């Protein structure tokens, strides 16, 4: 194993893994983190801790990851390129490693115009692919960017990156995935899958390029809460493609029962994804709906989660 990550062990052992997501609170409410962690514990193999998602200021991913870890969850600390230059990023990664955080997910980050600090200056000193490269250098060579000096202590982290099969140019997306793998990504979590056909086309190309042999791909899924949420996501969330049939099922669900239909659709998607060759797991993004994760994991026959040290 390259790292102490349990996620790595499970993936290398060939398990179909389940990761979840925990959004830090808009404040220092540790109890809120503990509450979410309690809902997810035992049902996911690792949990992504988002990094000021949608550019809204929240408790830092590094601090939240530590709290999650204390609650018995293995964190995947997300890190976006929007807010830190390469000095701050490498410093925070070293700090995270010192705190025992074993996984990191490297992302570009949503543009700041969407958040509550719309007048801020973004950084993007390096991009997500360059961050993956910096992570690999930190871990495998124990060196910083542009420096040949060895660091004082190993930085052993399992390196993740994101991929979106549902954004243009579709034809180029597998090649961008290839760049991430070549930069050093050990695992990939995708944008949420609703359209299985487009996803299979992307995955099939990834297989042809030999990428599913070189990294572990986890398909993102989101349980829809209501017809309104489905319509909003279908129409307004950049990089999401939702087939009309799914929107219709959600809109047609009896009043107050949208969530039941949403969980059902999510489990059906997971069932279909489990059958796809070259897929190593699912990433369940139950945004502010963590309490549904146990049900989804159970209904999708992914419970209990494998025990491994």
């Amino acid at each position, binding site marked *: 194993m390259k790292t102490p990550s349990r996620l790595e062990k499970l993936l290398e052992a060939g398990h179909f893994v389940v990761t979840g997501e925990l959004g830090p609170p808009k404040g220092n409410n540790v109890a809120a983190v503990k509450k979410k962690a309690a809902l997810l514990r035992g049902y996911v193999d690792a949990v992504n801790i988002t990094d000021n998602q949608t550019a809204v200021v929240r408790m830092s991913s590094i601090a939240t990851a530590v709290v999650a870890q204390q609650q018995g969850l293995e964190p995947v600390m997300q890190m976006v390129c929007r807010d830190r230059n*390469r000095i701050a990023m490498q410093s925070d990664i070293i700090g995270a490693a010192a705190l025992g955080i074993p996984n990191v997910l490297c992302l*570009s980050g949503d*543009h700041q115009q969407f958040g509550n600090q719309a007048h801020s200056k973004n950084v993007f000193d390096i991009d997500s692919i360059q961050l993956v490269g910096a992570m690999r250098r930190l871990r495998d060579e124990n060196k910083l960017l542009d420096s040949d000096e060895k660091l004082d202590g190993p930085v052993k982290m399992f390196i993740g990156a994101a991929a979106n099969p549902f954004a243009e140019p579709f034809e180029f997306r597998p090649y961008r995935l290839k760049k991430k793998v070549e930069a050093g990504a050990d695992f990939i979590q995708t944008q949420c899958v609703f359209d299985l056909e487009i996803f299979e086309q992307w995955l099939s190309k990834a297989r042809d390029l030999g990428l599913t042999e070189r990294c572990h791909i986890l398909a993102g899924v989101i349980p829809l809460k209501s017809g309104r949420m489905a319509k909003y996501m279908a129409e307004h969330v950049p990089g999401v493609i939702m087939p009309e049939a799914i929107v219709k099922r959600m809109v047609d669900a009896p009043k107050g029962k949208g969530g039941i239909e949403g969980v059902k659709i999510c489990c059906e998607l997971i069932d279909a994804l489990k059958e796809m060759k070259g897929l190593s797991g699912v990433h369940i993004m139950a945004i502010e709906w963590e309490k549904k994760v146990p049900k989804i994991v159970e209904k999708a026959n992914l419970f209990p989660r494998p025990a491994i040290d």
Partner: protein
Amino acid sequence: MIVAQIKPLPEIAEGLEPHGKTLIVGCGGCTSICLAGGQPEVDQLCLELEQLFKEKGLNKTFEGYVVERGCDPDFIQELDILAAEFEAFLCVGCGAGAQLIAEQFPEKPVYPGVNTQFLGVNREVGWYEEKCRSCGDCQLAYTGCICPVTRCAKSIFNGPCGGTQREGRCELDAETPCAWVDIFNRLKTQQRVENIERIRQPTAWQNQKQGQLVHEAYRDRYTKKD
């Protein structure tokens, strides 16, 4: 060219209020072309500012002068014979020009009359678009001559990010085209997509301190000799 936009009149007036006679200096270069700081704009500002102060009960005099190129000391020197009779300057050339005037007349306040916006092109008459961030390490050779630093909202070098919307639009809004979709399409047309299949390594940013450049042919002239 450098594209600039005239500041709101009240903001300009706020700076000038404590001063007496003011010279409004225009530029015959970029800010003339983008209709912010040429002769017509200088003339109009003189009238508008006089009127604005008159309404406040203040009798102030404004005069205008347009130098051929406000970023060149040879042309700024033309102001020497005029300067004595003015208390302050309002520059409607770009920010570079304003600073050159201030260097020439360090004892007098110089105010900017425009916001210098960007380095860009004429799209149509009165319509300008940013094209270059002067990053100092031109990337255009591998991106099909579309600048990712300027046009991508995240200035990423290995795009496109995951936020691209339908019809190749940026995650910012449905009106903004995704630079990286355009880069891909152009390279595809030219059968050069392999250009962006290789990882671009972290950039050695060149614009993190004030730029100074001496043309090679003039090195000797400006190099101090013992």
